[in-house]
């Protein structure tokens, strides 16, 4: 069992930039369904995809993803 919880602000950041799920998916070379899963918190991306998302949203990695330790 993982003892950390990873959450993200992809949906909020994407909407703030006026980017659609399709556009973000194309920028990160993933399917739209992966963006849907990420925004729903159902998928933890690889480090490479996490950086791609941060670059596409023009933010730092820690602005996009947050990690909390389970107590």
């Amino acid at each position: 069992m993982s003892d950390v919880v990873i959450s993200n602000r992809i949906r909020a950041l994407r909407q703030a930039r006026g980017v659609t799920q399709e556009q973000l998916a194309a920028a990160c070379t993933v399917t739209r369904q992966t963006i849907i899963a990420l925004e729903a918190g159902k998928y933890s991306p690889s480090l490479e995809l996490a950086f791609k998302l941060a670059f596409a949203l023009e933010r730092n990695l820690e602005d996009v993803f947050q990690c909390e330790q389970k107590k």
Partner: protein
Amino acid sequence: MWSSRRIWAVLLGLAVVSFIGDLFGPAGRWWGVDIGATAAAVFHLALIGSAILVGIRRRDVLPETWSLAEGRAWLGLAFMTMILLAFAKLLWNLWLLPEVPTRLSDVPAGHFLRELVLIYIVWLVISQLLGRGAGPVELDERDLRMQVRANRVGDWALIAAIFQCIMVLALFPAVLLQWWLAPLILAHALIGFLIIRSLVEHVALVAGYAWARR
């Protein structure tokens, strides 16, 4: 009004059911209708219909949350099920032969091979049609992770089948295994293991996607 997705699911379901009817249904006529020929006709029509529907409404047949790879996994599950059923029927026909076949030409595999070619071609066509207009990315890291996990489950299924085979060979008296140990029957059993492995992999794949979405 039925959605394209529901019509497609019904057509694929109808293809599987009519295929089972064609393979295992009673021989002869029922109320003057040739059951085997009718089931075969329904099977072919359902396959052609589902391919045409995907060609026309490819964006509507898969749910929005399904990736192309998930759609193809479900398609693979349906077609692998049909292949396994056709193979089971072939084994049954081998069992019914008065003598164990010793040459490849003795195996009544003509019907099975024709069905196999048809199933494979339709599978390929529908899979390609689904891919058209699916966007620039057909497969990404999430799909690959799912496939790696499903592949591992398939490997474990194959190991379990081989282990079971070892146990049977070790524990059962040779007299009872005489039929199974004939070279051509053994070869068919090994092909069966590979088909089961692939089917288990597809089951694990669709289950993996469903589990990830829960």
